[in-house]
């Protein structure tokens, strides 16, 4: 707009409607001759006033698309972060506004973990907080469902760190194992279940990552076992929800006391999932049967990473996983850390690695493995050329086991990392293995000289 015209119109009309003209007579005048410091500059432009008005009434009348780009930028700059989401969610894509919202709500934030998108960060965290504070049978599910149309285009990842159980009468609080009671009593105790993801997951069209923890954060001395209960019905509903969510890539259910039965139930729903590539079930209580189910899942999905850190898988479960691994061509990373695989499982895994040509990373820490596993793994070292990293800490491999590993390593040229801390291996073997690893790493670096090593 022409600035001169603006000024003219300003002079014609009172600048702010509603103000009593008599209150400031000078604003009515076109020139104020007696004031030497008066200048046209102090008169606000009409555009500015209009924009100010738009900002003030944005909640009722959101005008943005019809503004000129520079005016739009000015409006966005001045919009308060407290505007209702149903107005702003699908209207404003300006990152600065959402940054303001995030900063206002959570203070210092790291946007890099959200793909450098403040809007995504805002909606993900907003939805997470809604779900984390959702109390079944108390909170209205519409609070969640109302958010869905606003945030379904922006939410890619949900990190639910707690799920509140329903509030129960004091008489219901029992010390017994909740699983049986829940499944036995059925309708008598409907309130044991947590938030039902079935109503949400199939609507979030862009969801790729889901992190769940069936538990309560910071319960302190109010600890009760049933606060950390992952009920069978929860499992059922979650499984169905996961099946309906076709875009999911990463699923993480940790610290939720997932046992064999629940694991099997989840796996039956996850079989042949079109996009799932990473499954993390760390810090649960999965045993051999659950491991067998996971082994089945391995060859009926596109899983690239499986993490069963800190579970109770024993030799049989490890064998099942190993036999699946020997036929698998997709899995890149397997974490069996802190289980009780033992030599039986370790040797099975080693045999599987002789056949497998895709696995890159293998974690076998703290698995009660001893010398036989070490000698089996030495064969793997000398024959397998795809494995890059293996971790064998906290296993009593012993001096002889260390020697056989050293021997195997002497014929290897591809392994880059081999963690052998606290394995009771002799210092000389450790030194020589470390040297070979360094040599391998240097060779790789030399091969990739154009691009700097990103280790």
């Amino acid at each position, binding site marked *: 707009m022409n600035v001169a015209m603006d000024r003219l119109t300003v002079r014609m009309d009172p600048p702010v409607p509603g103000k009593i003209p008599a209150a400031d007579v000078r604003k009515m005048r076109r020139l104020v001759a007696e004031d030497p410091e008066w200048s046209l500059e102090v008169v606000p432009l009409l555009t500015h006033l209009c924009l100010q008005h738009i900002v003030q009434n944005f909640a009722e009348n959101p005008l943005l698309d019809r503004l000129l780009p520079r005016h739009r930028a000015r409006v966005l700059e001045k919009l308060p972060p407290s505007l209702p989401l149903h107005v702003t969610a699908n209207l404003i894509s300006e990152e600065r506004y959402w940054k303001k919202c995030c900063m206002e709500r959570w203070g210092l934030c790291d946007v890099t973990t959200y793909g450098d998108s403040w809007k995504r960060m805002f909606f993900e965290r907003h939805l997470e907080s809604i779900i984390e504070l959702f109390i079944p049978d108390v909170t209205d599910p519409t609070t969640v469902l109302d958010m869905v149309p606003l945030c379904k285009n922006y939410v890619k990842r949900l990190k639910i760190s707690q799920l509140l159980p329903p509030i129960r009468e004091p008489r219901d609080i029992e010390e017994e194992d909740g699983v049986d009671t829940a499944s036995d009593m059925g309708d008598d105790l409907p309130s044991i279940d947590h938030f039902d993801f079935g109503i949400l997951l199939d609507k979030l069209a862009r969801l790729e990552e889901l992190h769940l923890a069936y538990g309560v954060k910071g319960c302190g001395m109010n600890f009760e076992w049933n606060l950390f209960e992952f009920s069978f019905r929860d499992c059922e509903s979650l499984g169905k929800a996961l099946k309906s969510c076709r875009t999911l890539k990463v699923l993480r259910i940790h610290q939720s006391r997932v046992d064999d039965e629940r694991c099997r139930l989840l796996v039956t729903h996850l079989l042949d999932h079109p996009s799932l590539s990473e499954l993390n079930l760390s810090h649960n209580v999965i045993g051999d049967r659950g491991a067998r189910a996971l082994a089945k899942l391995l060859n009926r999905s596109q899983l690239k990473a499986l993490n069963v850190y800190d579970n109770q898988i024993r030799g049989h479960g490890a064998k099942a996983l190993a036999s699946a691994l020997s036929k698998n061509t997709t899995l890149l990373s397997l974490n069996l850390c802190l289980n009780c695989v033992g030599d039986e499982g370790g040797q099975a895994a080693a045999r599987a690695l002789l056949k497998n040509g895709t696995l890159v990373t293998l974690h076998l*820490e703290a698995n009660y493995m001893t010398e036989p596993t070490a000698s089996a793994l030495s064969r793997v070292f000398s024959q397998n050329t795809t494995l890059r990293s293996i971790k064998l*800490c906290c296993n009593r491999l012993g001096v002889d086991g260390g020697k056989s590993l050293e021997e195997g390593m002497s014929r290897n040229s591809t392994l880059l990392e081999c963690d052998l801390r606290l394995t009771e291996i002799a210092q000389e073997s450790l030194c020589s293995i470390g040297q070979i690893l360094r040599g391998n790493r240097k060779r790789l670096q030399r091969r990739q000289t154009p691009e700097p090593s990103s280790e």
Partner: protein
Amino acid sequence: MSGTEPGPTDESAFPSLESGDPAERIAARRNRRAARTEAKRRQEQGDPGENLEVQAEVRRSLKQVELSKQRLLKLQTDGLELVSNIQVAGDTFESQRRSELREACRLRLQKMEEEVKASQEKFEEVSRRWRTTAELQIPQELSHAVNTQIELCSSIVQDKNTLINELHQELKSSDERYVKDRKRQAEMVELMVVRMEEQIKSLIKAYREELQEIESSFDEEQTCLLEGNLRRWEELLKGQHDKELEAAQERMRRKEEFGSLLQRHRVEGTEQFNDVKEQLETTMQGQQQQLEQNKATFQLNQEKLEYSLQQLKRQDKESSVIKSQQKRQIIRLQDTLNKLKMECTNQEKEKQKVKQMLSENYRQVTQQVRDRQRKMRHFSAVDARHYEEVWRMNEKEIHALVGRALDLDRIIHQQLLGLDWTPPDTPITQHVEPITSRSHTASSALQMAALVLKGEGRESAALETGGGGGVPVKTMKSVLEMLCDEAGFLVERKLSALLAPLEEEERRLVKLNSIFTALGIEHEDEVLQLAEFLTKFPEAEDPGPLHPGDVLPALRVFTARRRSARVPAGRDAAATVPQRHAPCWENMADIISQSKLATWNALEKALLKYHSVLQERSRLLAETRKVQQQNTELRMLLHQYTDSKVNAEPAFSSK
């Protein structure tokens, strides 16, 4: 001003140029200046040999980067190991605890099973005893038994209680241990956090150091490069200055030169201008005068023209009258013309017919003439051949006759008279040319021309054959050459085109040949005649060299004369030849001279006499021979008669 305010400069390490305080601004400027001089000094000190090190510097910086990268990588891995050590330890603890827990659980279960077994045994014993006690009748015994039972039961209960107590104890201890573990884990987490923080700090520090190192190396390198480049820049600048100075001097010099040149040109220009101006002024005056004259003549002419215009107008009127009259006359004449035209066309048609008829006649006549000519030619050729043949025959005959006469003469002389015979002095075998062989002479005409043209002196022959035409060879040559040049139209065009590549001499010769054939000159004499004619052509004037322009009329006259002269000449040829050859024939006839003839006559007479004598003698000889023969025959008859035995009878019989 200089040292008055050390305070503000010390206080703010970097006095800003944008500062509000003027004193600070001054200080800032001073600092900047000092830094510049310092940098310059440093540069001057560290100047020599640094250019050579640039390459090495580059390498050093890259090496520095590589080194830093390696060091940071090592630091990172070390730090990671340090931090993850705690996790590994925690895992170990956890797995140990679990195994211990499992072991304890196993022990506990074992213990409990043993306990169960023991208590079961005791219970069975108690229950067994109940049966025995039930049979007891004596109260004391019964009470005793009951007491023992109670004891046993209490022992069982006590066992259980101790077990429970133990379990409680264990629970408590495990609770304590849990708390301890929790504490330890918390400590470990804290330691981990501390280590992580330390690591982060050290890494930050290391990164900073390395960054500084890299920066300093790059700075060094940059300063080196900068200095080198600056030096080169200055050198180049100096060179440029020198060049520019030279160029400026050159320019000045040339400017002066051009100035003087310009001055000269200007002076010359003005002079020229003045000259031209004067000239132009004079011409202008002349032209003005001419203009005046022209004007006067123009006026005169105008008057004249006006007068003539009036005249013309009058004439025009008259002529229009005349024109109308004439038009009428024209119409009349047109009519007559049309009539005449009609007549004319009629007549023309008639004439055409007549003409056609005449031309037909003419064609027939010409055809006849041509036929006659052809016949005549044919007959003449045939006659000539006949003539020649007759000639040859006669010649041969006469030759034979002469030969025979001579032979006879010789024989007569040698054999009859016994005299020495001398052959006659005229050649007997002289060949008499027939009149028709004229090609020989024609070629000799060309030959003569060739010889003349070659300049060979056959002057005598030319003069000899020229028949008194005293034309020297040089004149001949010039005449022939002129003829060749001027009478080129007589040569066929194609021939001249063909002759182009030949030599001058030959070309001339061939041209002359064709000219001669065109003029009908065939004989050497005719050539000479022509030459003579040409040299003497301008009959009135003195016989100088012939003008080329006169060649054509001369030729025309010559050919006309020849044409008139040719017909009798052709007829004379045949008549003159026998006259020419008559002495020859006479010669032939007189081959035997009169004296010889007289001798011959005398000899004839004598010989005739001798002949008659000889005839007599031969008759007598023949008579004698006949008599002798009769004699011999008679003798033979006689002899036969006498000699035969049977003379009588046979004699009679034979008779």
